[in-house]
């Protein structure tokens, strides 16, 4: 067994972990980051490619919740976490949500001024911008459809920086905060899975890890630390805490954005390299409409969902694009680490109201796509009718059922939850795990509820706030 010693151990290197580590090293703390996944040069792999899926996704992207219907979900598993694989859309936590969360979970120092201050700080460091030029056709399509219906649509800013030629580069953690932390003295240990945290009394003393060396051989690595931040995401953070003996409400309350999709065929070709930055916000936050990654493979998957004959549309894939409707549901799920299994069991049961919202989302999405000029709509509903006219949409209400809906999500939050309401939270207002003096959670798990939009901005803002709190108190 190899062992090493550090002041602060950060488990995970995604939006939460990288923010934490960069801020701590900036303040002169000695930090070690362990990351279960590999460290891959962000320029080496084409975004949204199969190669990216194999190298950077947990379970190579093949994973789903238990429930009726199951919800397929994807997470990053690499240095930089999900920021390496997401669309980079940036959405500050809206103030009505922070207010609701502050009241419902009794979160201290969670006011707009505080959050805005940290959001600005993060945005400045990270680079958040809008398109320097006209939106690509896939994005303009949504805007056009929404305008025609009189629905609100906005271009979301993204964590992108643009060069002189207007080429944008997504500011992933592996490009920004991880190198910054390393330059300030942090150690990053990739390919290193934390098996469990070690405790003594009301303290954690470190962690035992399973590390894969560059040559493929494996070793046990023991890390002693004065403080531990668990930032492994909404699935892995509660699982690690449970494996280490912390239970209570940890792992309960998991939230996600169940999502339905439509593959829409248009008269003219669209762009297929990126993700649309426009979102229809007319029904937000309970329902958001946007565009998905639409390489040929994704289009094939989306076309196949309805089980209609799609060969003709797939041959014409350059005129096809995949759009989605995501809901904020009533339901919540659970993460349970089962002894002997390396992956936790994740369950999520949608309510009837959620199923209805998904059907409504599918119809509204259909409306906006038809208004934008789509000629054929393939819904992600088994046996769902391929729609060509507005009066055919109504059939989707009854077509979408628990046994026919194909759902997915890329946003997972709320499996630990922060606040002073000890009944419903796993950590206090600043992410300190209840009952442990030197253990904090600092990632998507802390969000008390699903934000209805890409959670990266909220995660980084809250992580920056909590890290500051740590620096002021420890």
């Amino acid at each position, binding site marked *: 067994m190899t062992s090493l010693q550090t002041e602060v151990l950060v488990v995970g290197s995604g939006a939460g972990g990288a923010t934490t580590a960069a801020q701590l090293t900036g303040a002169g703390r000695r930090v070690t980051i362990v990351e279960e996944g590999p460290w891959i040069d962000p320029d080496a792999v084409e975004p949204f490619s199969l190669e990216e899926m194999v190298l950077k996704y947990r379970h190579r992207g093949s994973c789903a919740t238990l429930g009726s219907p199951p919800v397929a979900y994807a997470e990053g598993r690499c240095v930089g976490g999900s920021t390496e694989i997401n669309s980079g859309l940036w959405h500050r936590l809206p103030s009505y949500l922070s207010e609701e969360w502050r009241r419902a979970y009794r979160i201290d120092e969670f006011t707009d001024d505080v959050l805005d201050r940290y959001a600005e700080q993060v945005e400045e460091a990270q680079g958040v911008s809008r398109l320097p030029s006209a939106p690509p056709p896939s994005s303009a399509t949504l805007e056009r459809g929404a305008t025609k219906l009189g629905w609100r649509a906005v271009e979301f800013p993204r964590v992108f920086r643009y060069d002189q030629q207007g080429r944008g580069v997504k500011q992933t953690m592996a490009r920004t905060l991880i190198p910054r932390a390393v330059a300030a003295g942090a150690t990053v240990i990739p390919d290193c899975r934390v098996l469990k945290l070690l405790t003594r009394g009301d303290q954690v003393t470190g962690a035992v890890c399973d590390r894969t060396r560059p040559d493929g051989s494996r070793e046990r690595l023991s890390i002693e630390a004065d403080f531990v931040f668990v930032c492994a995401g909404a699935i892995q953070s509660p699982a690690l805490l449970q494996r280490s003996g912390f239970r209570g409400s940890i792992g309960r309350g998991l939230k996600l954005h169940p999502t339905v999709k439509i593959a829409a065929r248009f008269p003219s070709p669209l762009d297929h390299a990126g993700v649309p930055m426009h979102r229809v916000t007319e029904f937000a936050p309970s329902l958001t409409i946007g565009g998905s990654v639409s390489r040929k493979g994704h289009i094939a998957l989306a076309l196949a969902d309805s089980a209609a004959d799609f060969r003709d549309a797939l041959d014409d894939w350059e005129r096809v694009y995949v759009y989605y409707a995501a809901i904020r549901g009533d339901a919540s799920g659970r993460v349970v680490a089962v002894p002997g299994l390396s992956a936790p069991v994740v369950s999520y049961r949608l309510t*009837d*109201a959620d*199923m*209805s*919202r998904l*059907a409504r989302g599918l*119809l509204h999405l259909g409306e906006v796509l038809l208004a934008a000029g789509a000629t054929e709509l393939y819904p992600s509903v088994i046996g769902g009718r391929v729609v060509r*006219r507005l*009066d055919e949409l*109504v059939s989707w209400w009854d077509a979408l059922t628990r046994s026919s809906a194909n759902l997915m999500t890329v946003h997972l939050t709320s499996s630990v939850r922060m606040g002073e309401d000890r009944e419903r939270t796993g950590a206090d207002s600043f992410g300190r795990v209840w009952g442990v003096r030197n253990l904090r959670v600092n990632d998507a798990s802390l969000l008390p509820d699903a934000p209805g939009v890409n959670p990266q901005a909220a995660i980084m803002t809250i992580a920056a706030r909590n890290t500051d709190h740590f620096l002021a108190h420890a």
Partner: protein
Amino acid sequence: MTAPNGSTDSAPELPASAAVVTGAAGWLGQNLVRALAPSRERVRCLVRTDDDASLLSVIGPSIEPIVGDVRDPAAIDMLFDGVGPSTVFHAAGVIHPERSVRSLFDVNVGGTQLTLDRARRAGAVRFVHVSSNSPFGANDVPAGRFTEDSPYNPYMAYGQSKLEAEQLVMRSYEHGDLQTVIVRPPWFYGPFQPARQTQFLAAIRRGRFPLVGDGTQQRSMVFVGNLVLGLLLAETADKAPGNAYWIADARPYELREIFETIRAALAAEGLEVTERNPIRIPALVGSMAEAADKFVQGRGRYVQAVHVLGELKDTIACDISRARAELGYEPPTALLDGMRESIRWCLANGEQL
């Protein structure tokens, strides 16, 4: 709350010369459409079937029925097609789903969203939304009264669906999309009643309807004529937009008073009424029915008898002071007269009492 821009720049003339009514062939809808028909240039009516369309067409030349599903974007497009500045009365909704709980949300929430959206696009002058007492659950004590400031506490799936619909309506107002008014009626009675209400009256007549608990629990009820008056006032009152109002009879009644009044009304209309007192069921049975209802609804199913039994044990009463003050609402009909009118309607229409 932000002030709405309104859907037209100049102050609209109210009442609007056109009305759009969803759920037009329903219990409330039929009463409302009859009240609107003589005074409006056109009354666009959303109905489910061709039979319902012919039923309404005979009311008068202003009636323009559109057959369609309130969940269908194309049907709602037709409903608003060329209608001009209008008042929308959104009365379509499912109270007792045939089987699955999901349809409560599909129709009550999904239908409301679609109707709001098309009303906005059509430049509707005002949107009067028919809600329910259900988003508020039951009063804590028999003397309790809901006001417009009472907190939401939805009763099961129906209450949840009507709550969400109210929230969509309020959002539409806050966004400046529409001038909205929410009207919250409790339990209706009156002409054009559905079979379930006729069965209820018949069971009271035969002493077969159970009285849950001691019968001192209070219920607000609303005679449909009173409710139609409330809706028409909501259409024109200056203070109404952005608000919600309880619209009910002048005062709540004790459940045992309701039963006795129905018996008196039946007798007054010349019907023989049993001497037997109603079956009494302990309140505990009501609670058990409520638990059973919750259980089956949790599994997506709906059993009407169990639902009704579970709800009968509670006081569900409201205070209409704000409607009186801001709408000038003064309900002209009280329980005995209203029930007699219902019974006369049943007899005239060959309903088995």
